[in-house]
């Protein structure tokens, strides 16, 4: 299943990093990060950086839904950022919704997480443990009634058949190539849809949902890497497959040539 994503790095001038992300043809969130910056005395922690998240809806004042989203994001970002590296500082995230968000759906939570990850990558000033990508998965009642079907980005027509839904966030870290990678599920809110499902969730269901989510999250991860590649090497057209190690070698050779050319 190929996801329809919109992702881009933004260029807000007063913050360290900014990015936009959306599931679908238009961006849903714009997030910015400033850090490590000065922290207020009452929020200072002596051995780690303080993470502050502000979620702002497009319309209305931020209310309980925004606060709920901010708490979720703070937990996840705590796992993504290496907070021990910069004690007594503040890492400030602001997530601005670009579309009206009357209800906090799992897809929106996933979009927010991805958006924060992208802005962290854009800033480059905050050390990261890995890249956290999130997707939302729904289990729909299958037409033949036998095998459960898991879908990403539940469309409107599936809504009446959705039995369980949730957002999964995975921490990805590269090893040598994108074929061997490590992915751990760091957060989920897999739950049955209220009043709809007769059966409860069991462990097998959760494992199946998580595996389906991991495949989709990997696609998000690959798109993020492609975006970074485009940014780093704007002359080269972003290839469908990511750069392999051999091209990295040739880049090293270029660097030594440049050093030779410089006369000091």
């Amino acid at each position, binding site marked *: 299943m190929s996801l329809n994503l919109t992702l881009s790095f933004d260029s*807000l001038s*007063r*913050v360290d990093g900014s990015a936009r992300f959306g599931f679908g043809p238009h961006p849903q969130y714009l997030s910015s990060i*400033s850090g490590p910056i000065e922290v207020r005395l009452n929020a200072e922690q002596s051995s780690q950086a303080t993470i502050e998240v*502000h979620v702002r809806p*497009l*319309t209305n004042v931020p209310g309980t839904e925004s606060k709920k989203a901010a708490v979720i994001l703070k937990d996840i970002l705590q796992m993504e950022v290496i907070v021990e590296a910069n004690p007594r500082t503040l890492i*400030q995230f*602001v997530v601005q919704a*670009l579309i009206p968000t009357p209800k906090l759906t799992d897809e929106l939570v996933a979009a927010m997480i991805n958006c924060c990850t992208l802005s962290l990558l854009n800033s480059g000033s905050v050390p990261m443990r890995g890249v956290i990508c999130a997707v939302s998965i729904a289990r729909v009642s299958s037409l033949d009634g036998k095998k459960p079907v898991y879908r990403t980005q539940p469309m409107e027509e599936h809504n009446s058949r959705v039995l369980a839904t949730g957002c999964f966030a995975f921490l990805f870290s590269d090893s040598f190539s994108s074929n061997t990678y490590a992915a751990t599920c760091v957060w989920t809110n897999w739950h049955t849809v209220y009043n709809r499902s007769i059966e409860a969730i069991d462990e097998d269901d959760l494992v199946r949902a998580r595996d389906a989510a991991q495949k989709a999250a990997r696609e998000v991860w690959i798109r993020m890497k492609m975006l970074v590649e485009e940014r780093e090497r704007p002359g080269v057209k972003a290839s469908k497959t990511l750069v392999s190690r051999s091209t990295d070698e040739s880049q090293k050779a270029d660097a030594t040539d440049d050093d030779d050319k410089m006369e000091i």
Partner: protein
Amino acid sequence: MRPPSPSIPEKEFLLSALKQGLRLDSREFFDIRPVTLTFGPELGWVECSLGKTRVLTQVEAKMVRPPPDRPFEGFITIHSEISPMASSEYELGRPSEEEVTITQMLDKVIRRSDVVDKESLCILSGQRVWHLRLNVHCLSDAGNLLDCACLAGIVALKHFRRPDVEVIGEEVIVHEPTSRAPIPLSLHHNPYCFTFAFYSDTSINPVLDPNLLEQRLNGGLISIALNAQRELCVVQKSGGVPLEPADILKIVNVAVQKAKDMDAFVEARLQEDWEGRKIEVR
């Protein structure tokens, strides 16, 4: 958090450059930064950037019961709050001076100068009127947030289309955008705001559209809101340095010319965007 004041070398450099008639970003004294307007997929969603300063605005409309003292008019509320995204010096919940200025000016320029024809927002007098809500989000503060916010607000109001409403007796039918084309708001005029910064050294001429450093080091700011028909809406001066009447008249004349140019630009962009949206009229 208090912003770090510009350093003394920066201050001396800027003031001596301005004395020689040079602006640090090589603009003329009465040049504004390049304006870009980006329209969103929804009508009434605009992102306006004035150089590196960026503001996002969105208009939404709800049907509500009008207050008993004004049963024939709709009303408009403007919500603007600066988040730490604009700069980490802004804290949520503690309105800075800049924020208060912007809120007051937006109120004066858009609400009190009667931009929107409020009587046209009435659906069923005494029972149903349109309540327009203009949400202003300041995304990046690189100087002169006020002009950018006012421009974005006006453009959003011009871009917005409200649903078509039919009243039969006491019954109100709201038509979906897919069945009947939404209709634009009825606006009396389009004011644009221009801010000039002037300095304690009176030999320095006022500069239009100050960038961040110029704004930080100003001796005073004067903001003029006017429309392309040469009608002044708001003149606001803040800061201690006195201005000669001749200077003010010169500034007003410059603003008049800029308002005409801005109006032409905005109309052209709106037209361009409207043509890009394929609306089939059956």
